[in-house]
């Protein structure tokens, strides 16, 4: 057990932090929602009602979709795009999908390679792109969830303002949908760009996301 925790500390810690912070978001969001209810002369709603509300769902999904979009883009674009001196980039001479030998595919698979790395056709294609595909799928599902929940939350506000609700087609073109979407996208893109560039010149001793402290600024694809 102790060994399991030590060997999986990164995933476990972030998973635990995720649950704690999501709960914090739920309580803060409920307080905010009920503040608005009181302002409008309406009764408070329960915690259970809030965490199943469109308002909470839209707030959660809009952040999820942008995070997974960030990873999806980063995973796919780093196949072809490099950044000289960045530990987030692979070596400048390895642009592209690389050779089967480099990727340990098919006859080049070793005894420890996953089974599907030895396969061919669709199975190999799926496994060889599985990380990006899954991240992209989660992004799309989260974005759709944001659209559906965001529309319901927006329409709840519309009715509270004595205005007509919007159809899905209207909401797809609505500023609310694109404002929720783009405000999250821009922050994720900035974070990736700054990480890729700052890691050229800055170091974090012992971190897998940094070059070793003494490594040259020009060294590319070196992680600590």
């Amino acid at each position, binding site marked *: 057990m102790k060994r399991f925790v030590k060997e999986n500390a990164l995933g476990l810690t972030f998973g635990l932090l995720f649950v704690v912070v999501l709960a914090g978001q739920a309580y803060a969001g409920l307080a905010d929602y009920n503040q608005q209810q009181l302002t409008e002369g309406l009764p408070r709603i329960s915690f259970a009602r809030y965490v199943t509300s*469109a308002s909470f769902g839209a707030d959660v*999904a809009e952040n999820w979709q942008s995070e997974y979009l960030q990873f999806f883009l980063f995973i796919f674009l780093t196949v072809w795009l490099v950044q000289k001196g960045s530990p987030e980039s692979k070596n400048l001479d390895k642009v592209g999908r690389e050779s089967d030998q480099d990727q340990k595919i098919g006859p080049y698979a070793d005894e420890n390679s996953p089974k599907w790395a030895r396969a061919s056709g669709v199975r190999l294609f799926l496994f060889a792109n599985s990380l990006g595909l899954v991240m992209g*799928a989660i992004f799309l599902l989260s974005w759709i969830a944001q659209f559906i929940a965001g529309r319901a939350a927006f*329409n709840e506000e519309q*009715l509270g303002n*004595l205005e007509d*609700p919007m159809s899905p087609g209207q909401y797809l073109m609505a500023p609310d949908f694109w404002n929720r979407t783009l405000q999250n996208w821009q922050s994720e893109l900035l974070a990736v760009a700054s990480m890729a560039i700052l890691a050229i010149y800055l170091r974090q001793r012992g971190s897998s996301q940094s070059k070793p402290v003494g490594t040259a600024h020009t060294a590319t694809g070196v992680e600590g």
Partner: protein
Amino acid sequence: MLKLTVPAVLLLGLAGCGSVGGEAASAVAVRLLTAVASDDGATACATLAPQTRAELEESAGQPCDRAILDEDLPAPGTVTGTDVYGQWAQVRLTGDTLFLATFPDGWRVVAAGCTPRGSRPYDCAVQGG
């Protein structure tokens, strides 16, 4: 997989479940207009949200059960549509549109006698909040 499952569950719970509670909301809306048409002010006022009732009494300077009968609300027509989103509902009848909100004891009318004004909020004869 957990992260794929949760959005799916969220979708079911949160998405625009437009008709859930719609029948109950439209029944309250019709009850208000029917009571007004029958000169039953007490029953009509029982369908109003507390803030709507208070604002009606304040603006009219008389008790709700009398003031509501002076608001020229239309006779109850046929329900042509209902939308429910979260704590709010819009009930459309031939001749009137009403907005309702949920309270512990059910739907209550927040605004009635409403006419559309294009992209601006509805103009309502009776309105709270």
